[in-house]
């Protein structure tokens, strides 16, 4: 088996091991811990008060703006990784191209900044 595939067997095995460890710990706790639920115990915690409604509702849209910005920048950094590895082979051509690419994104960041999208409130 080539070494390349074996590496990913390791990755897979570690993921499975993580799930198994968590399961084993929960099982052990299940065997050792008491289990006497009452109505009060199973209530949602709200600082000792009677819980009001559910939490599944609306939340601030600021998160949405930052998530949009993040998507743009995260795609950018994924493009940067292959360029960084082949940096010396690509030389000036690669650098100029990447600078233009980053420049376009910086213009976007400046636009968001000027539009006050980066201000939390």
């Amino acid at each position, binding site marked *: 088996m080539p070494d390349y595939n074996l590496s990913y067997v390791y990755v897979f095995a570690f993921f499975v091991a993580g799930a198994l460890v968590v399961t084993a710990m929960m099982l052990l706790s299940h065997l050792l811990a008491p289990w006497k639920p009452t109505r009060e115990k199973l209530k949602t915690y709200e600082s000792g008060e009677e819980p009001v409604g559910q939490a599944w509702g609306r939340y601030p849209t600021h998160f949405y703006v930052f998530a949009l910005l993040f998507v743009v920048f*995260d795609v950018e950094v994924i493009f940067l990784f292959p360029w960084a590895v082949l940096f010396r082979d690509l030389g000036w051509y690669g650098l100029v191209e990447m600078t233009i690419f980053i420049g376009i994104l910086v213009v976007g960041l400046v636009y968001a900044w000027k539009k006050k999208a980066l201000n939390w409130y």
Partner: protein
Amino acid sequence: MPVGPFGIDPFIWAPLRLVIAVLLVVGLVFNGALAQIYLERKIQAVIQDRLGPLHTGPWGLLQTFADAIKLLGKEDIRARLTDKWFFLAAPSIVFSPMLASYVVIPFAPGIVGADLNVGLLYMTTLGSMTVLGIVIAGWASNNKYSLMGGLRSAGQLISYEVPQILSLVTVVLVVGTLSMVGIAESQPGWQLNVLVLPLAFVTYFIAGLAETNRAPFDLPEAESELVAGFLTEYSGMRWAIFFLAEYGEITVVSSIVTTLWFGAWHGPFVEVFPLIGVLWFTLKTYFFVVVFMWIRATLPRLRIDQLMSLCWKVLIPLTLTNLVVTATLLLVFPSTLVPVAIANWILLAAFVLLLPYVQRRRLVALRERLRTAA
């Protein structure tokens, strides 16, 4: 018949090595967490002029064991309104990627789970999977504190991922490989990357603090505002798994710092006894773990707007500048790293000196505005 290492048949050795690796890493995570909780308590105690754990065992060494046993015996409560399957799966979603990122950590020459050729990218990918588990935990709890904690965590982690990866790319530019072993091998002796790229180190470390939800960026679990953030509904063993994952993640970030900037296993006598590299690697990693705790005991927590503007208005422009400057200088001077190092140190000095100045000017302007408004 071919004979593998230790005179064992290679067909038996391959699965055996995998099992040994998994067991070692699981042991490492558990022991690391025990050691780090003890360290954290003692360091905080020393900084706050207290004694810390003292009574359980010599110097309180057994305190964390006692806590672990206590946590095992606690009732596993799941509130009625929670989303059952997501609530149960969340600890696993946080824990598994953390465990899997140990695959590529180069502990010593030849001692690495698997030397992936995309090691660094793999590390960052797994690091950002944590946010998924935290958001799921916050949402599934159906608790207002948990939801706020989970959302804050999402906003914080996705923002800080950008400067984090940009800092890593700067190192990749200089080193030219994504393999963790390759990066470690590129820094023999005193040729540490931190001497060439100190700014990337500082920005990565700040982003790493945010990525692990550590103080001063511990907004997702800010106990003075959100009870325990996304952990509010979790108790007993499930809660312990989140904490195991957090301490494991701190070790992962520290070991990335060690590998990328501080020469990984390199140190005296490594050429003679390769195994001693494990010692150097552990010492360097734990130095940064201690720095994590030192920072926690020293700095107050940021507000969420300060957190976001530090990331988007300071760190991202800075890391982008650093990236472009480093790339240009590397091409202008292909044979030497000295100009890159000089530029980096100058940028770092500008960052350290100008940031307080800029903040002060903003504060003065704000005061002026408030006074004229009044």
